[in-house]
């Protein structure tokens, strides 16, 4: 594969909710990686269980893929709506696979070179005596045949995906997919240029941001996950719950988000690593609990998957508008750390880091994600678990020889971190206190004690800031234009630049990606940004939150903004356009 020119295509399937769009999309992604390709996939669907338009897009390439594409090479239309909504996304030589007995296509809507591939999906299903819910498998088979993916790989994916549902389910799905595959092979042999040449040198995995975070939590010895369902965090709850028995952890769907964070705090106080998860609305309910974790110095990892809001907002769409909310949530001042991963690999490794930071600094640590990262699959090399180091910080266990008789829970240490003893450890006891407290934990309203503890807690963050890694700069240090983004906006920006070899309209462009978003690595950022001639901030909100934070924290003023807040992720062309227009 290495020396071949890049092979790439985008496949999209659309249909009503209930048509199994999500399942077939994931199967297509898996067939693609098993055939040796990289993928990124992206789903759009309304907040409905039945009806409504669901779309699943998979971008396949022989090189790494970072984001979705606007134009489509293969469109699979399981209903009329898919054709009318997506007909303008065709490339010159695209293929449309559609059920000619159910869907009307007028050839004049398309360039003559677009191939209209009629596959009587419903009829094929009926003739085989199969159930109509198998339509999606026929579509999968037809797609694989068009592209030239092997039937064996496709059937193996079906087997692996449905085996736990029983042999019969595997069989039914396989038959339907084979029918679709054979129909296209027999009737349209060699009609398309849209072939991908498989390569077998790939052992990648394919997973969503939420799955990467769940996996990392398990790998980091998280033993309690607590949540209340809310898109786009629910899939993390489902993942963790499905793993609870096998992995020996406890997962609790609590009565509300207030209970969620307080149970998380209780479990962490009990000595185990704990994580809670929600979206912005649920986090709004958690805010007082955040302060409790801060003041009691309880380690806690908080997952927040952003969606557009406020209130109920757009439940199934994406946003990056909760940064300032998380930075300032809860009254008064206390240390907190916010990490915001850019892709599934970062989601995994930053989650591992989040658990360590929470334990080391005994304070809440956020993983700030969004629907785009949470639910999009990306292919990745399998994670190297041997690289994980679990650091529980200053933890005195009963095995340690420390004399516990004079133990002070909130000891005023030079780095601000007080050694921690797990509740129930014999030979000592202490009060963990939500009131301001003395070093021994008992409440105080004394001026000097108050100042001492505020300063002690603040020192923890100073230490963290001194240990912060520098942010990633992609492209040449000295470029004409610097793009800045944080979190999941990384994908579209990297993709737009990589395709153009970091030169747009004759200008060199580099990219500063921030994933340790609070506190920021201020010095490193200002070193980079003070050298750039033009800075464009790209983020998913309407006020340019990170741009404002950068100005406050580093003095650097960004020159221009590309902001998006319609619930959709960024597309490469929007970024290229912005750069071109800003010249």
């Amino acid at each position: 594969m290495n020396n071949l020119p890049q092979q790439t295509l985008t496949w999209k399937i659309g249909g009503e909710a209930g048509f199994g769009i999500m399942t077939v999309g994931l199967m297509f992604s898996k067939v693609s990686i098993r055939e040796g390709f990289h993928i990124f996939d992206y789903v759009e669907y309304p907040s409905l269980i039945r009806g409504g338009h669901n779309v699943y897009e998979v971008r396949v390439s022989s090189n790494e893929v970072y984001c979705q594409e606007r134009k489509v090479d293969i469109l699979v239309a399981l209903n009329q709506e898919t054709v009318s909504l997506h007909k303008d996304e065709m490339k010159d030589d695209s293929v449309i696979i559609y059920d000619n007995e159910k869907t009307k296509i007028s050839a004049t809507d398309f360039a003559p070179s677009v191939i209209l591939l009629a596959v009587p999906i419903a009829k094929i299903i009926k003739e085989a005596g199969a159930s109509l819910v198998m339509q999606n498998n026929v579509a999968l088979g037809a797609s694989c045949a068009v592209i030239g993916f092997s039937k064996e790989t496709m059937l193996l994916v079906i087997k692996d995906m449905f085996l736990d549902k029983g042999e019969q389910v595997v069989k039914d799905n396989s038959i339907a997919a084979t029918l679709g595959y054979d129909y296209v092979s027999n009737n349209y042999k060699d009609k398309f240029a849209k072939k991908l040449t498989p390569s077998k040198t790939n052992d990648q995995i394919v997973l969503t941001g939420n799955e990467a975070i769940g996996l990392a939590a398990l790998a980091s010895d998280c033993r309690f996950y607590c949540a209340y369902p809310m898109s786009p965090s629910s899939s993390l709850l489902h993942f963790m719950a499905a793993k609870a028995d096998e992995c020996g952890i406890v997962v609790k769907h609590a009565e509300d988000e207030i209970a969620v964070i307080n149970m998380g705090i209780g479990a962490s106080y009990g000595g185990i690593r704990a994580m809670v998860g929600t979206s912005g609305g649920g986090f709004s309910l958690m805010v007082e609990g955040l302060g409790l974790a801060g003041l009691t110095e309880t380690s806690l990892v908080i997952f927040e998957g952003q969606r557009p809001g406020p209130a109920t907002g757009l439940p199934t769409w994406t946003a990056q508008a909760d940064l300032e909310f998380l930075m300032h949530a809860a009254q008064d001042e206390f240390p907190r750390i916010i990490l915001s991963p850019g892709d599934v690999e970062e989601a995994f490794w930053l989650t591992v880091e989040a658990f360590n930071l929470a334990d080391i600094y005994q304070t809440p640590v956020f993983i700030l994600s969004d629907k785009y990262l949470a639910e999009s699959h990306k292919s990745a090399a399998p994670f190297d678990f041997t690289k994980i180091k679990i650091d529980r910080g200053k933890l005195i266990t009963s095995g340690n020889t420390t004399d516990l008789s004079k133990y002070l829970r909130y000891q005023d240490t030079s780095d601000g971190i007080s050694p921690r003893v797990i509740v129930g450890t014999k030979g000592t006891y202490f009060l963990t206190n939500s009131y301001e407290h003395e070093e021994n934990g008992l409440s105080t309203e004394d001026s000097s004690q108050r100042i001492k503890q505020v300063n002690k807690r603040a020192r923890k963050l100073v230490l963290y800031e001194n240990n912060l890694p520098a942010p990633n700069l992609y492209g040449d240090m000295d470029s004409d234009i610097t793009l800045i983004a944080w979190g999941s906006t990384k994908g579209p920006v990297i993709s737009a630049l990589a395709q153009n070899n970091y030169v747009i309209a004759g200008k060199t462009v580099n990219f500063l990606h921030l994933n340790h978003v609070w506190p920021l690595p201020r010095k490193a950022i200002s070193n980079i940004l003070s050298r750039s001639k033009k800075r464009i901030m790209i983020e998913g909100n309407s006020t340019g939150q990170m741009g404002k934070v950068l100005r406050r924290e580093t003095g650097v003023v960004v020159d221009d903004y590309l902001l998006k807040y319609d619930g959709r992720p960024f597309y490469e062309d929007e970024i290229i356009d912005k750069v071109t227009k800003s010249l």
Partner: protein
Amino acid sequence: MIVADYQTNRFPTWCPGCGDFGIWGALKTSWVKMGWNPWDFAIVFGIGCSGNMADFIKVYGFHSLHGRALPNAVGLKIANHKLPVVVVAGDGDCYGEGGNHFIHTCRGNHDISLVVHDNRVYGLTTGQVAPTATQGFKSKSTPDGIIEVRINPLALAITQGATFVAQGFAGDIPHLTQLLIDSYNHRGFSVVNVLQPCVTFNKINTYMYYREHTYKLDSSHNPQDKISALTKVMDDERIPLGILYKEERKTYEQSLNQIATNTLVEKPYNLNLNSLLNEFK
């Protein structure tokens, strides 16, 4: 252990005569009788005059937020179900601000002993009505008298799934002490509602009032009889003291296979991570 062993060097800040002294005394005596060292159990405190007890007791204590002691305790219990966990809360705290948690902790039957200081007012915030206040009770926040009817915490506990429901009186320390011990020995969620005179802000529900209106359940009461228990707790004029309802039901923690042998906190970590990757291939 003797009672004084549980005392910090801080003398309680409660008003002289406050019922909280009696509950404090009963709690300490109950631990002496259980033979518990300060590290053998943990208490999660709510916020209120009641929760202020946290500063006066030498144990593993967690002074929580107003209303949130129960979910903290549930989390702690899940992490370490072998550690006895007691919750000390106020009635505003537990039945008002944290009312949702109260209902759901009953449903879950978590193995926790909840001790509620029921003084029918908010003591710490200077005497506004609590949800336990009698309809018409006048306070600073309800100068014309409270419009809502009172919450019935014991009926709520019985109907929502608590498996040990009892009522004590801060003026009868020996009786309360025994109820507390019984609640610790019960496996499951125990609710001990304690009638606690607030001498400063509640001039109606006084020691005298409770002496006149309460009676002790005797052997004629069968704590397995839910309907009889409910009938008794619905009577506002004749207030029962003692174990009203008791049932054996699997606790939340007993229902978790993951912690059937070891607690979460003591379990060794031995996940086969590479096998977790298979489903992503």
